[in-house]
């Protein structure tokens, strides 16, 4: 195996463009000009957009029935049972403000008109409520997705 050790790469034809292999392995990507800003090309090639803004900053698959717990997640540190149908989540890496996009979906087998809604967002806490019709209920599976800016 050949190995090149270098601190900075500069394009030969264009100083800002370096063409690499089809597969490039690294453990971390950062924007060069701004660490949190990497531009990617759209599938059709007609547009470019920021990569980081499209990445989910947190998600959770959790249940409220029985002892509330998280079944799968990213960037979620804890779940707290705040009452029937109410769950509060701690966020590991804080969000930068309370203006985040937080849709939820409820998988409520056997429950009528089961739906979950956002109740509260802070930089490190998100609260979700679940109803069956017009009453609070504990659902067997809820999915939550968070997009926004990390601090």
């Amino acid at each position: 195996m050949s190995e090149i050790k270098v601190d900075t790469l500069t394009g030969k034809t264009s100083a800002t463009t370096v063409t690499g292999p089809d597969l490039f392995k690294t453990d971390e990507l950062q924007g060069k000009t701004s660490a949190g800003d990497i531009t990617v090309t759209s599938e059709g090639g007609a547009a470019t957009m920021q990569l980081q803004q499209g990445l989910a900053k947190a998600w959770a698959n959790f249940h409220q029935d029985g002892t509330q717990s998280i079944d799968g997640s990213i960037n979620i540190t804890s779940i707290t049972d705040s009452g029937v149908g109410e769950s509060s989540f701690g966020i590991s890496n804080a969000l930068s403000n309370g203006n985040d996009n937080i849709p939820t979906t409820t998988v409520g087998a056997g429950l009528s008109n089961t739906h979950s809604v956002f109740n509260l967002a802070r930089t490190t806490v998100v609260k979700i409520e679940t109803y069956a019709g017009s009453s609070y209920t504990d659902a067997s599976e809820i999915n939550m997705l968070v997009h926004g800016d990390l601090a």
Partner: protein
Amino acid sequence: MSTVKVDTLVASDGTSPVTLTKQHAAKTWTNWNGQGTAAIRDSFNTASITDNGTGDTTVTVSNAFANADFSTVCGRDSTLSQTRPKLLNMSRDTALSTTVSRYLSVEGTGSSTVADEDCEFNFVTIHGDLA
């Protein structure tokens, strides 16, 4: 840990989109306040929203999708100022084009009593291919 610092990622042909192995980024998301004059609170790839009436909002994205077969997830708040709990929902009504979709928010006190509602927090996230 090794770190690569770069401003733009493209495929090695210089123009095609780069593959993020087993990862797919959302192409747009919008958080808006539907009460009073509807206004975007924060967003990504969203050009504008239009208030079509109570609980009825049109969202226009900046960069168009390749087709209208994108996947949309929606959400809303529990309207803190009102008596809870109640029946609440927010959903996509229709994709009017590759850039414009219409969303409806409703509330009710039971499954048979539902009305359109301007709610404070509305959420839309879309995954799919951009043009």
